[in-house]
């Protein structure tokens, strides 16, 4: 009997559901039109040998060979390691800085646009150019970083040609660029927190820090989650900034997974292997994202 209840949808529910799917339709139609075929191709390619510079080899099916090759590829390992390091540094970095910027920008300014603009400019600057600008800042002779060191009477540093410093410089650029996006999302979140909460806390004698911990942070959780998940996905795909700043150098010491995929497919024309790398990268992203999603689904803290 209870089964009968469960499985019968009333016409009203049916029409709600129909409406729901109809509302999802535009998004999925767009996705299907644009990326369905490319993704299918990508996955198909990853199981084939397909090297455009060696067309005489044909495109035979090779099963998991490309994947096996990746597992034994030192350069792939290094690229993964670098990517993970970038994620570990720049994601929390951007969230912390972004949160700071959002809090600062959420003050009752009389003139708001310079602040808004300052918040958005890093993000409005195309990635490649942000990378190039920071490369210039860290340039040995004409860079601001070394100019300051010289001004302090210190020896100039080889920012972009020693692996540790280059990593630092790149992280700085990425954080600068991406904290803007984080700040934007968090600012929007901050503005939905009712003032009355703070007034109540104020009355209760909470310090600013306590208000931040007890009201702002919990209320910001959904926004922080959105920012985190996207910052992580984009961090996994880190490409333009290290590409512009060091092109992966010195050696391959700042090369990321996305850069290696780019090189493999665009420069080396090895579509098969490149596709396998891309699928691996996708799997890693998917795992991380699903962890995020599961974490938030468990989260009872909403409202």
């Amino acid at each position, binding site marked *: 009997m209870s089964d009968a209840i469960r499985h019968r949808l009333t016409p009203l529910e049916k029409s709600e559901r129909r409406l729901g799917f109809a509302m999802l339709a535009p998004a999925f139609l767009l996705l299907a039109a644009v990326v369905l075929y490319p993704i299918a191709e990508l996955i198909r390619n990853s199981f084939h040998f397909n090297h*455009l*510079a*060696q*067309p*005489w080899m044909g495109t035979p099916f090779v099963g998991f060979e490309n994947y096996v090759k990746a597992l034994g590829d030192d350069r792939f390992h290094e690229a993964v390691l670098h990517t993970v390091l970038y994620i570990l540094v720049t994601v929390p970095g951007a969230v912390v800085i972004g949160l700071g910027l959002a809090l600062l920008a959420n003050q009752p300014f009389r003139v708001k646009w310079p602040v808004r603009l300052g918040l958005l400019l890093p993000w409005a600057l195309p990635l490649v150019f942000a990378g190039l600008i920071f490369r210039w800042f860290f*340039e*040995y*002779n004409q860079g601001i970083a070394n100019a300051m060191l010289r001004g302090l009477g210190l020896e100039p540093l*080889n920012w*972009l*040609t*020693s*692996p540790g410093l280059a990593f630092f410089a790149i992280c700085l650029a990425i954080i600068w660029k991406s904290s803007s996006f984080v700040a934007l999302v968090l600012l929007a979140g901050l503005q939905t927190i009712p003032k009355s909460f703070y007034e109540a806390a104020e009355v209760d004698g909470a310090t600013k820090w306590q208000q931040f911990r007890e009201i702002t942070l919990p209320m910001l959780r959904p926004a922080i989650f959105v920012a985190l998940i996207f910052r992580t996905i984009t961090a996994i795909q880190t490409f333009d900034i290290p590409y512009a700043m*060091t*092109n*992966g*150098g*010195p*050696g*391959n*010491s700042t090369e990321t997974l996305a850069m290696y995929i780019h*090189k493999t497919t*665009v*420069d*080396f*024309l090895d*579509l098969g292997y490149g596709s396998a790398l891309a699928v691996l990268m996708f799997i890693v992203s998917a795992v991380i994202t699903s962890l995020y999603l599961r974490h938030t689904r468990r989260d009872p803290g909403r409202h």
Partner: protein
Amino acid sequence: MTSRFTRRMAARLGLAAGLALAGAAYAQAQTTLRIFTGGQQRPDVMRQIVDGYMKANPTVKVEVEVGGATSEQQQQYLNTVLASKDSALDLILIDVIRPAQWAAAQWAEPLDAYLGAEKDAIMARYLPAYRAANIVNGKVIALPYFADAQFLYYRKDLLEKHGLQPPKTWDELKAAAQKIMAAEGNANLRGFETAGAPIEGTVCTYLVPLWGSGEDMLKDGKLNLAGDAAKKPFQLWADLKAANVTPPNLAEIPTDRIRQNMQAGNLIFGMTWGYVWNRLQNDADSTVKGKIGVVPLPGFTADKQATCIGGWQVAVSAFSKNKAEAAKLARYLSSPEVAKQQAILASHLPVFPGVYTDAEVLKANPWFEQALPVVQSARSRPVTPRYTEVSEIMRTNMNAFLAGTKTGDQALGDMTNRLGAIFR
């Protein structure tokens, strides 16, 4: 009142006439060819050239499509278009390092059939390095459009001032640089720069000294980096760095920084491409006008001097729907007349030795006289369908070495390992 009316009337008539003309041109043009060129290969000059061609061949309409400025961007686009076997492009300007790859990928239509019996005669007219670069496995893959090479740029004024001759060996270069730097006492003045960033030019930073020792990277298609000669480039750059002739940040120097430093008067010797001469000579802000000379790059001994070639070729797309017409246009673009036109309009180095000595060309580019022997001594980077991988291996290892993250032996070892997998 009337004047406004007549003006409007005239404008209408003009528009009508324009439409009529356009219509007529459309009716006549039976073939449309689209040629792809990078933003930096002077598309404006290309347009002038094809305008001339269209006047002579009224049944052909040629559109010039300008791609991204850098060869990276062009490659990104071209790879996508050609991997999709798209017929949108008929002719494509490609870098001299590409013909082998294009031949292998079957993106370029071999031109032998279109050249017919004249093939050998036509190919014989080019500088030997370009003839070699464009014939892959006996097939003509592309026709040279204009030449380029790395030169040793030097400060004529400073060398003369200190009684020095342009160096023929690396030792002479080092000695000259040290002497001038010591004597000038200018903290900003550097002895020598070459590309050290992980970019294509850095491949030559390894190859030029290798050639300068009399060896080559490949011998009969097999990797030839086992001998002592393979270590020499590393030793050379380590030596120059230790002697303070090269700057500490060599590993971050891209091609154009050499030109900028030279132009600012901060560099005695620079190893870089042909475009630099014009800039040094003609830019309003150049501090070294008339003070620059070019010679071939040094060797370890004077008889082993060698230079990297560059330059651009016209290939016919294998997916073109008008291959015969395209091949005709390619032949035109790769003719001495066009080479001369380019030399005068764009200072592009000709691919025909004879054009260098043409009076009009020399009048526009007096330095071509010095450039000719350099270009004639120029050599090709390894010819292989997987050149991009080869290049990438060489430049990253060279860059790591220059940055000091790998020793010469490590860099050479890694290089040999990975190159070995390609040249099996």
